[in-house]
Structures are given as C-alpha cells and as structure tokens.
C-alpha cells in the first residue's frame, strides 16, 4: 500500500507583525516548522503502516511538499520519524501559488511517483493560510472521495478505510473504498519523536528535489501565473474600540454591569 502525506512548511509562530512602512509581514528569522496539522497527518500514516506491518503487510509512506529549498530539512525530519521517502517540489514557477495552483503542482508530483497511490493524507488546514482547501481540491483533481476533519486515528482493513470525523451535525463514523483522500484534525494523533537510529539514518537519506519540468507541470497553471485569486490588500486588524473601564469595588462594578445588562435587554 502506498500512502502520500502532503506537508507544508509554516512560520514557527502565527503572531504577525506588520512593518508600518512597507506593509509587509516582518519575519522574525526563526526557522520554519512542519504545519502542526500535517505533523498529525504524518503520524496517522505511520500508525497505519505500523498496524499493517504487524499483520505482515507492506506499506510505503511518502511525504511531499511544495516549497523553498530549506523545506528539505523538514522532509528529512519526516524520514527520521519513519517516512520511507520524501519529495520536495521546488521551483520559482511554483512561488506565489493560491490553493488551486498549489493543488495542481502537488497533483503533478503525486502523478509522477513510481507507485500508484492508495491514500493521500493531509492536515485539515495550514496555520498560516487557514483555508482547509487543499485536501478537498486534491481529491477533486484525482476524482477520489474525500473525508475531512478526521478526529481520531482511522483504521484501514483491506481496501476499506474507517474514520471518525466531525461534521456540522456532530460526529459520524464513515467508511470509504480506497483510493481516497483524508484530512485530519490537529489532535487526531500526536506525531511520534524519532529514535536515535532514525535521526542518524535520515542524515544519509535522499530527499528528491524536483522542478516543474521534472514533474511535467504546465507553468501557466502553477505559482502566481496559475492562481485565479490574488491578494490585493493585507492588514493587521485594528482594535476598533477601546473598552470602557468599569471602576470601583467588586460590588460597585457588579452594580454597574447589572445596569448595563438590563439596559441592553430592552
């Protein structure tokens, strides 16, 4: 069985400061990290691999990312934790991509793998973009069914996957025939730490780095050129109001609040 995990490198903190002059985000120079939701996705894949190997069934877990060259370090860390191989899609032509263009690049990478894919696992969303769109878009690109917002470790038996997911009505348990795409909630699992041999072996492991040409991607559909949406303005939201301070002893404060609340009722 072949599982592909899509991971994104994100800033280590989502606290954003805008440079008041250039109106661009001030980077604090701290190294990027694996999107926490994608870390969970990797654990979900590794746990499926563990369960299957206990039953004597072979599973290959490949991690893939579209990113800058520095992302190679994060993919190597995924190998240290148990992924079998990693692919970094890195090319200027990929830069500035919105979700449609990102999905296209990832789908080219996945299509080019030397083994057919049975399951694609993504984090539900990235902590910087927050769109939660890549998973369902990838599923649509491959015409695979998609199960979003998986809450616990899913179970694979033969060609069927069972998962418990959150939905508007509450939670539900669903099953689907592979191949399929699943997206996972951050707390569905906790990514295991690597062992000493895992870290040492990963140092020598190859991380494939491929350009748009290497994966037969049409550059009019990748990066900024391939993005139907564009950001015309970014801003740090201002506090639109200054809170009114309610002073005094707790009894006095409570009296003032009670009056406010009664007034608000009318």
């Amino acid at each position, binding site marked *: 069985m072949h599982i592909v995990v899509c991971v994104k490198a994100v800033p280590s903190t989502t606290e954003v400061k805008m440079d008041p002059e250039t109106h661009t985000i001030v980077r604090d120079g701290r190294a990027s990290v694996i999107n926490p939701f994608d870390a969970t996705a990797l654990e979900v894949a590794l746990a499926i691999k563990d369960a299957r190997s206990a039953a004597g069934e072979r599973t290959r877990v490949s991690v893939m990312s579209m990113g800058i060259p520095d992302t190679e370090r994060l993919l190597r860390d995924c190998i240290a934790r148990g992924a079998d191989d990693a692919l970094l899609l890195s090319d200027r032509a990929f830069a500035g991509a*919105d*979700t449609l263009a990102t999905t296209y690049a990832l789908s080219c990478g996945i299509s080019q793998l030397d083994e057919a894919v049975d399951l694609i696992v993504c984090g539900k969303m990235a902590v910087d973009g*927050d769109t939660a*769109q890549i998973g369902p878009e990838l599923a649509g690109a491959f015409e695979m069914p998609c199960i*979003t917002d998986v809450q616990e470790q899913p179970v694979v038996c033969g060609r069927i996957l069972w998962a418990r997911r959150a*939905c508007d009505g509450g939670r539900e*348990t669903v099953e689907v025939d592979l191949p399929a795409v699943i997206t996972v909630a951050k707390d569905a699992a906790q990514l295991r730490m690597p062992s000493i041999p895992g870290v040492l072996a990963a140092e020598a492991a190859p991380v494939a780095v491929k350009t748009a040409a290497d994966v037969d991607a049409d550059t009019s559909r990748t990066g900024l050129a391939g993005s139907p949406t*564009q950001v*015309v303005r970014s801003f740090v939201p201002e506090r639109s109001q200054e809170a009114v301070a309610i002073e005094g002893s707790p009894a006095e*404060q409570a009296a003032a609040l009670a009056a406010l609340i009664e007034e608000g009722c009318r």
Partner: protein
Amino acid sequence: MSWTSPSSCSRARARLSLITSHSCIQDRRRRSSRPVPRHLVAAGADEVLVCRDARLARPDAEVFAHWICDLARAFRPEVILYGATAFGRELAPGVAVRLKTGLTADCTVLAMDPETGLLQQTRPAFGGNLMATIVCPAHRPQMATVRPGIFAAPAADETRAGEIRYVTLDASVAPRVRVVDAEPVGAGRSIADAERLVVVGRGIGSKKNLAVARRLADALGAELGCTRPLVEAGWLEYPHQVGQTGVSVAPKLLVSLGVSGAIQHLAGIGGAQTVIAVNEDAEAPIFGAAHYKVVGDCIEVAEALIDALA
C-alpha cells in the same frame, strides 16, 4: 448558496438565485415547518433552484460538488457564495478544483468594487492575526465561503415575487462515502446558538470555581463556554470550547471571566455584540476585544454580579 447572472456590471441589477436540496426547514421558535423555496424568495431570492433527490439526503461533498458544477456550467454565474459551515468548507473546494476557479475561505467581509465590478473577499489568516482582501479577476465563478453569524439573516418580505424551478441531478453521480454511525452533538443546544454566554478561562483559578460561573450563567439565562486550556485540563467538555479549534460564537452578550485572550480564542468571539471582560491583569489581551473592561478578581466580581442581578 447563491449566484448572480453573468452580465453584472455595477449598474445592472444583479440576479440572485438560491439553490437548495431541502423541501422544508424546521422553525424552532414557532414549532412549525415552512417550505424552503417560498422562504428563500421572501428572504430576497429572485430565483430558487430546487432539487429533490435521495442522493442529496446526506451532505456528501462529492455529490453536491458534481451537482453544483453541472448547474454552474449550465447557468454560468458570476459569483457563488457558500456558508462556511463544515460542509460548505469541504464542498466549495470540490467545486473550485473542478471548475478551475478561485475560492476564498471563511470571509468576514464582502463588498463589490464599484470600479471593477469584482467581488472583494476579506478573510482572516494566521489564526486571525492578519486580514487579507482577495479578488478573482479572470476566472469565473468568483467563489467564497462566508463565516456564519457575521451577516444577519434578512427580514422576510412575504410580498416578494420570485421564480421557483426544479432541477435534476445527473444519473451518473453516486455517493462513495458510507455513513456507519452518526453521533449528533450534545443533547442541549450548541453554545454557538446561544444569545448569552458566560465564557471562563484559567483565571477562574480552579475547577471548583466553575460552580460560581454556572450560577452566573443561570442568573443571566446564558450558556457556559470556556477556553481551550480548560478542556485540556478536563474541567469542561469539548462542546464548550470557544475559539479557533472550538466553536465560533456570536451572542448578544458575552461575559468573559478570567480569560487572558489568546488570539485563537478571540477568533471565536468576533461575532459577539457586547463583550464584558473581567480579568485581574489590566494588560490582558481580552480587553482589546471587549466593550467593557473590569479589572479585578473574576470570581469576586461574578459573585457580586449574581447578587446585583437578583
């Protein structure tokens, strides 16, 4: 879900069509059911497209995506808007990738640019620390999912006229996800619907102080919510969690006790109309999101407020 007809230059009156798979909705307050298409016309639709098909009984994002794509190819709308419910947020990307168009998630502000006629879609990123305004200049339809609770539902105007059309779902579409078991969210109302909320954070000190918070909630006729650390500590269950990874709430009144105001929590209370925050720390970030600031011991103030309300 709605769209406008193709020739929407700013001067022409845009046409609003709503599509639905429901034949009726339950009106909880009046305890009756109302036919949906009429309701939607009264709410402002020029046209309602209705499809009744067993395959649409369950919110299956793949099935609905195929259906909407077929309608989009037939009617060629300018814009498609979806509610950013869990379903809306998984459905819309399925449409976007198949129509090869753009999609903006979880918008909180929508506007039409009078010069370009483009839909300006504003949404939070970085967990709410950054707002971005996005447009989709060359691809159609322009699509966005819209955060629930931001816009008030329009008042019903029963005198409005509109067309109701019945459409079908292509025979080749089949659901592939099978539901084995469903667990509806808690027997009580979801705190997302509450008109009044008392939200507690770590500043209440200990689990036993929840009792005071509950009494205040009762006195106010409010539901009880909390921040994520309290759920992690086992003081309250997950349905009470308010924030980015919990429930987004938009009550008329929100009383916040001992909440410091982490950005992920603030992301969940943006829709609250009046926020009264109580915290010992005068510099707590919650005060930046509050309308009324009470610096003090939150349990003392809560107890005094219970007395004052009596």
